[in-house]
């Protein structure tokens, strides 16, 4: 069953006007951590937006474990088990860290709002159980001391970690992290990595991490892919990818593609 869990993109193209952001992209993200690298403007975030349904590709399709995702709404794609974070964290600033994290459980509640209104046993059990699970996850990421603080009062680095927790809380089968470590201090990066390593079972979840920090990718990801001008130009272990002359050209900014 695990063997087939993979996020695949098949000939996906996205263009804004005449600008081909993704150009017939085909790739396959296996379970475990994959670093998605590439120079600015390579189409990394666009790729995430296509997978989670914010953007409809002009052609091609996205499938998760053989099920087609492209064409579905973002809400439905999320319910198929795709969760993501954003480059700049989108937390609800007035809610506590814990309440933010619990938003991730939305699709897992068993009691409806009528039960919530009347405080039925089922609703209370849901709330209690999810609260504990969220607290536990926050603890894995070193955030349990902040659980009852307003999310907006946290430093940016912690906010980004909270967003990762919120995404994990939804128990995704595919987790897409958009530069989770950008702007984080060394301590926060360590907390993020420790949390991801202990909270994610790498044999059950596809994790795609957009990340510029090569050292971080090397630490966390057994595999890396490099996107350049809407195409995958290299896939393999981080070391092999970095050794690839094509990747070096792309990163050194050789102006070859006009």
């Amino acid at each position, binding site marked *: 069953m695990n063997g087939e869990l993979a996020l695949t993109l098949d000939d996906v193209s996205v263009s804004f006007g005449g600008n081909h952001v993704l150009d017939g992209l085909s790739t396959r993200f296996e379970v475990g951590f994959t670093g998605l690298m590439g120079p600015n403007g390579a189409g990394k975030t666009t790729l995430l937006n296509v997978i989670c349904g914010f953007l409809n590709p002009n052609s091609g399709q996205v499938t998760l474990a053989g099920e087609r995702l492209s064409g579905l709404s973002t809400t439905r794609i999320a319910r198929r088990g795709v969760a993501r974070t954003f480059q700049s964290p989108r937390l609800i600033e007035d809610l506590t860290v814990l309440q933010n994290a619990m938003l991730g459980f939305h699709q897992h509640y068993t009691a409806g709002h009528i039960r919530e209104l009347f405080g039925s046993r089922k609703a209370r059990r849901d709330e209690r159980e999810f609260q504990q699970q969220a607290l536990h996850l926050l603890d894995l990421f070193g955030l349990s001391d902040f659980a*009852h603080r307003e999310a907006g009062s946290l430093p940016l680095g912690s906010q980004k970690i909270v967003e990762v927790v919120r995404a994990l809380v939804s128990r995704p089968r595919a987790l897409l992290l958009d530069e989770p470590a950008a702007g984080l201090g060394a301590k926060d990066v360590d907390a993020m990595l420790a949390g991801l390593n202990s909270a994610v079972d790498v044999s059950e979840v596809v994790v795609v991490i957009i990340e510029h920090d090569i050292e971080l990718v090397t630490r966390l990801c057994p595999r890396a892919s490099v996107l350049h001008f809407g195409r995958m130009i290299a896939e393999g272990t981080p070391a092999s990818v970095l050794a690839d002359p094509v990747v070096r050209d792309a990163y050194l900014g050789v102006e070859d593609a006009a």
Partner: protein
Amino acid sequence: MTVSEQDLAAETGTPSNRAYPNLDVRQHTGAATEVPSSHPWRRLILPVAMVAALAFGPNLLNDYWSFLANLAIIYALMTLSYDMLLGWSGQMGLAQAALVGLGAYGVTVMMNHGIPYLLSLPLAGILAAVVSVIIGLPAIRLRGFFLAIATLAFGLVIAQLFSGAQSITGGGGGIAVGAWAFPGYTAGASIYWLSLAITAAAFLGVWRLVRGRFGRTLLAIKTAPPAAEALGVPIVRYRLYAFALSGALAAIAGGLFAQLQTYIYPQMFNTNFLVLMLIMLILGGSVSMWGPVFGSAFAVGIVQLQQSLGSYQNLAYGLTLMAAIGVLPGGIVSLWAMAKRYVRRARAGRNTVDSSRVGDAEPAGSL
């Protein structure tokens, strides 16, 4: 694992944690597992005391002041209904006065057709919930200003119906509302207690909803819609839930308002009334339970205090509002937060410990 398995797991309440074995650790002793406000019912002490005190209104106050208190209670319910839409769900609906009117006319017309008042109230609520969802349908596509205009247009159409459907509404001249009273009590005392009971129940119900998942979800949709969608929240459905709930509460308030006024006419529910509702919400403070209470009390009180000013009354009213909103952009409820911040700063200054930045967060949803 297939989706159907996962769905099933979610439905049967046994979340499949295969991928996240760590989540199954229930007995976990992290630093902050204790929720600080673990006694949410404590927050009810003050409101319950207030309702209990208000319940003596008809016994202690003369008819005039009892009427004003009753008006403020009904205004609080109206403002609560508006807060649901504008505050919690962040949707600029401008048909709220019309929905109050729909409740008022609905109850009056139903009573004229032999439906008992106490039955007509929930019926009017259901009717208005449906109408409100129809008004909210543009919200599927429209936001902000455009939604405001679309809903305003709906409101104007409904207001037109009040004067247009002359045979059942009495037209522009208005219509008398059938009197109702608890057996053995005066009409004034009866509507007062009924208003108080319904308003208190509505506040309790809304509080229960907004402090939990429903409120969290609405706030997420309001402030970070893409994030909410990406977490699997059906945002259109929730936006329409807010319209339905808001419409139902507005209409029930309207039904109470009609009984209190004993005579209603279309002009009562025009844009002036809408502006009054907006003022009460903004002045009291939105996304809060106390905001509508303060806003409505302030609105009723200020009009009374300025009665003696005669023709300068409107001017004084406007100036008071400008001053209040200028000084307190977050509404009257923000006074509490300001006071707390002041105390904390004073204390921090004394101890020369600066715990102001990160440490000052009150558990949110503290209402």
